[in-house]
């Protein structure tokens, strides 16, 4: 029996269930993002908006455009509308505490002064996470001056990335920062709006990356720490598995992955060992086959 039509007066793309599934399948394959039948209202609203913007006469024509356009621009615009961008500074701070109090000390064991440490915020959205990492490192990691630290950040949403590079935030995003850190690392640029200081903005290497694209991912290797928090929940099982595998390849042996507080590698991938630190459980790429079990 067919599902009843939605009772809400929401917009409709006119797509049949099969066409809707074809769109979701295409998005899943290209980006890893997974939307099921229960997200149909969410997806429909955004598809209708884009159909209007490009003047597509029907859903089939729009799906055709998505698939055939070599620039990928329309796919990018649609993806930008699909991604969820709720974040703020020092979100799930216990993990940043773990980074600077525990995980990094293990990372640098055996490293020489001046060696490079590489941290990647994967799915950085509007930038609060990589900037939080940078602030935590400068303020709280005792050994920050002994090494060269590279903080990289990436997202598939080009609009969010632009805002991340710009580094301007509303007070709501800053609410968990102590006032002295706001004074130190931000400049007020308008009532209720604050911009990250240049020195920090210039220290984050932002890039546009699709986790499912092997070519774009090739630039990420020898990483010591990856933060991927509350991004993989939008992927399906195979997408999560592939993302975890891509991170594994990007990590140096012994490197760590931080997931969101409700996420676990136990549902995603066989490649990592959970490690307990006082502040958090973190996932580690085994240093050698001996550790891999």
């Amino acid at each position, binding site marked *: 029996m067919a599902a009843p039509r939605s009772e809400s007066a929401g917009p409709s793309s006119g797509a049949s269930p099969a066409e809707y599934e074809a769109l979701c399948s295409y998005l899943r394959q290209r980006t890893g993002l997974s939307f099921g039948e229960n997200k149909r209202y969410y997806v429909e609203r955004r598809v209708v908006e884009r159909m209007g913007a490009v003047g597509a006469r029907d859903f089939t024509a729009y799906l055709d455009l998505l698939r055939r356009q070599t620039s990928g621009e329309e796919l990018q615009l649609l993806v930008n509308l699909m991604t969820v961008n709720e974040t703020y500074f020092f979100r799930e701070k216990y993990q940043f505490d773990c980074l600077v109090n525990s995980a990094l000390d293990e990372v640098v064991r055996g490293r020489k002064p001046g060696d490079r440490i590489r941290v990647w915020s994967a799915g950085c959205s509007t930038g609060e996470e990589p900037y939080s990492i940078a602030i935590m490192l400068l303020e709280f990691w005792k050994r920050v001056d002994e090494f060269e630290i590279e903080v990289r950040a990436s997202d598939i949403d080009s609009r969010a990335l632009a805002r991340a590079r710009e580094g301007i935030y509303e007070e709501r995003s800053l609410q968990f920062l102590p006032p002295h850190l706001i004074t130190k690392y931000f400049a007020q640029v308008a009532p209720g709006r604050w911009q990250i200081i240049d020195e920090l903005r210039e220290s984050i290497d932002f890039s546009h990356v699709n986790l499912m694209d092997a070519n774009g991912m090739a630039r990420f290797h020898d990483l010591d720490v990856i933060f991927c928090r509350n991004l993989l929940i939008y992927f399906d099982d195979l997408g999560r598995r592939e993302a975890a595998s891509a991170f594994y390849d990007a990590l140096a042996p012994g490197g760590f992955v931080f997931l969101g507080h409700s996420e676990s590698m136990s549902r995603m991938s066989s490649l990592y060992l959970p490690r307990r630190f006082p502040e958090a459980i973190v996932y580690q790429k085994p240093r050698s086959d001996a550790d891999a*079990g």
Partner: protein
Amino acid sequence: MGDAARRVLVVDDAVTVRAYVRQVLEADGFAVEEAVNGIEGLERALGSPPDLLVVDVNMPKMDGYAMLRAVRREETLRDVPALMVSTEAKESDRLKALAAGANWYLVKPARPQALALAARLLTGRPVEATP
């Protein structure tokens, strides 16, 4: 140790097996927690070391042998007694379990009396003489 219930972590991907072990061991005065595979088992054990591990062999993501080997490398878990449970009944399977760090091995389906007896012995609880 006093009268506080011994805590058992049951690691098995089958919901019916976890429910069965829970029923048997709770009836015998143990407190039971569950995990669905070796990675989740390791996470839970690391978060709060149990008094006994009951571990299945065949599980997705991380099998029981790999989990026990990882457990034995952890200082906080090295001495936690582990009962391995499996459908496989060859002598070589038993030896593999012991080599991975199991203290005891039971073949499924584990009878309630065998399960409870093994759990008591491994956690140092008194064992009543069976008729």
